[in-house]
């Protein structure tokens, strides 16, 4: 007998009693009057910032105004996507501008899953991550978010909330553990 069959046989034999699956939609979950305000308030403590694009301003205008001396910039919202040969080729990226499909007010998270991106390493190698989200695409909580997400990028998708961070040294919060040191969410 293979390990698989032996394990499954033991699990079948040792089945405990259990309830039926509960309906997770039967319980009211948290909601917000002003979702953008909730999102923006939260992300400030998570090494990020959220803004709404001003009239007539473009995403790149905003990015350049914020980081005038930025290094290599990659824009995944543009029509002709740059596609490197290896995922490692994104290592020197300073600013990555990435479309975010959906934002979640309760957790300041943005859903990222880009159908035309080859190497997701960009999201994690870049020093500064800019997520561009449609203004209307903001939901209250994670349950509402999971009802709407799709896995478009080679089966990959991630919720990203603020900057990469750690508190592994004496519980002191430090931004920029391995991934982006700064996270900017622009609602357009």
């Amino acid at each position, binding site marked *: 007998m293979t390990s698989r069959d032996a394990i499954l046989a033991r699990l079948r034999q040792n089945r405990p009693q259990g309830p039926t699956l509960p309906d997770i939609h039967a319980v009211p979950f948290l909601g917000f009057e002003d979702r953008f305000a909730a999102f923006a308030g939260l992300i400030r403590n998570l090494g990020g910032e959220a803004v709404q694009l001003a009239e007539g301003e473009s995403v790149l205008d905003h990015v350049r105004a914020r980081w005038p001396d930025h290094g290599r910039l990659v824009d995944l919202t543009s029509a002709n996507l740059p596609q490197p040969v290896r995922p490692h080729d994104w290592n020197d990226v300073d600013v990555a501008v990435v479309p975010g499909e959906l934002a979640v007010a309760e957790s300041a998270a943005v859903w990222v899953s880009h159908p035309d991106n080859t190497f997701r390493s960009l999201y994690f190698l870049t020093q500064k991550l800019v997520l561009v989200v449609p203004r209307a695409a903001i939901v209250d909580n*994670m349950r509402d978010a999971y009802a709407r997400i799709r896995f478009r990028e080679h089966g990959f998708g991630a919720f990203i909330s603020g900057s990469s961070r750690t508190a592994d040294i004496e*519980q002191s919060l*430090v931004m920029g553990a391995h991934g982006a040191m700064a996270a900017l969410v622009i609602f357009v």
Partner: protein
Amino acid sequence: MKPAHIHHPEAAAAFLQDREQARWHDSAIWWVRQKRDTQASQLPEWEALRTLAREIKAHTLSRLDEYLVAFQENAEKNGVVVHWAADADEHNRIVHGLLAAAGVQKLVKSKSMLTEECGLNPYLEQHGIEVIDTDLGERIVQLRQEPPSHIVMPAIHLKKEQISELFHRELGTEAGNNDPTYLTHAARANLRQHFLTADAGLTGVNFAIAETGGIVVCTNEGNADLGTALPPLHIASMGLEKIIPRLEHLGVFTRLLARSAIGSPITTYTSHFHRPRPGGQLHIVIVDNGRSQILGDADFYQSLRCIRCGACMNTCPVYRRSTGHSYSYIIPGPIGSTLGPSRDIDQHGSMAFACTTCGSCSNVCPVKINLHEQLVLQRRRAFEAGTLKPVKKMGLLAMRFAIRHPALMDAGGKVMRKVVPVLPAALTADSAWSRAGRALPDMPSKSFKELWRERQQENPS
């Protein structure tokens, strides 16, 4: 890996020698517990969420075999290769086989308590593979050649000065620079090079979705993402209890996990993997290693609902005052103190006594495991298996005798209340039940039973 024989009370006593560090450990971890409370209080539906999480997990455990089969089918449809390991040894052999076939020399790992449980690192190192733990806390304890002391905060037992010294020696950072930001960024630069030169990445699994055949990995650092986005081979090791039936259930679990673990609304990265990335391979190793046995034990199977958030250790008054290194099993604190003894009562019996039965763990657990009740049941097993030290055993037997003979207990109490206050201090301060620096409380003039009776007579209800 942990040393073979750790006896909780002795190890805890050794840790408590350094009072200042012990106090710091206690308060640092209590702070995390308080952050968790703040998050919980912000969700009116918190208790309802815990109930949902418990029911989803309890349901899943009642047909785990079906959900695992569905998971495998759906994962394979997506081009993922699924492996099954009956025990730690088989897991290690499968992982090594995959690495060897791909000619891997360097493996970057993100946090996985399962691979600690299986002793994967030493196994791979014996086979000539360089293993780099990439979670900052895990990297610190790896460089110190010691096990993690907490499942979420692996290096919480260390002070920054110790980490500074370690990094000075291992990474060449400035001597005496104890700034956490400086030290973290030094590790970032060093580990970035390892990510870029690794041949394979290994992650744990927080949740595996039967309906979609995908897995979810949660980190704040982004190390699991870098470790799987750069090298072409991704291996994910999962305990077979990580299954949840549907994608929508993540709408419950991702709301509970980080709030319970670290007092954040969510982890920075909640990454979902369903297919190998272009030009890559994705392998998932499903591990039993004793879990199917626990499933069949009516007293303890609920421990398999655990999502490894660590909240039970953060709240535990014994854990906070003794560190994870005082527990013999690789997972410390309340959940470890039921999982360890379930696995091997002879080796881990002392863990079941590292508990005041205050029940705080069961109250914070996001999947409502009856932890403190399980610990009491594990004590009985430890007693019956004859794993107790003679003094402890005699004490428990005397206690049992007294409880079964109430008149004798009353009389004994009376004598103690009269005699103890007039005993010379040297006698009470240094008994088998006391330690230097501890004093007996003042003896009350009446017993609880006497007070209760008086009260009943004054206020008959």
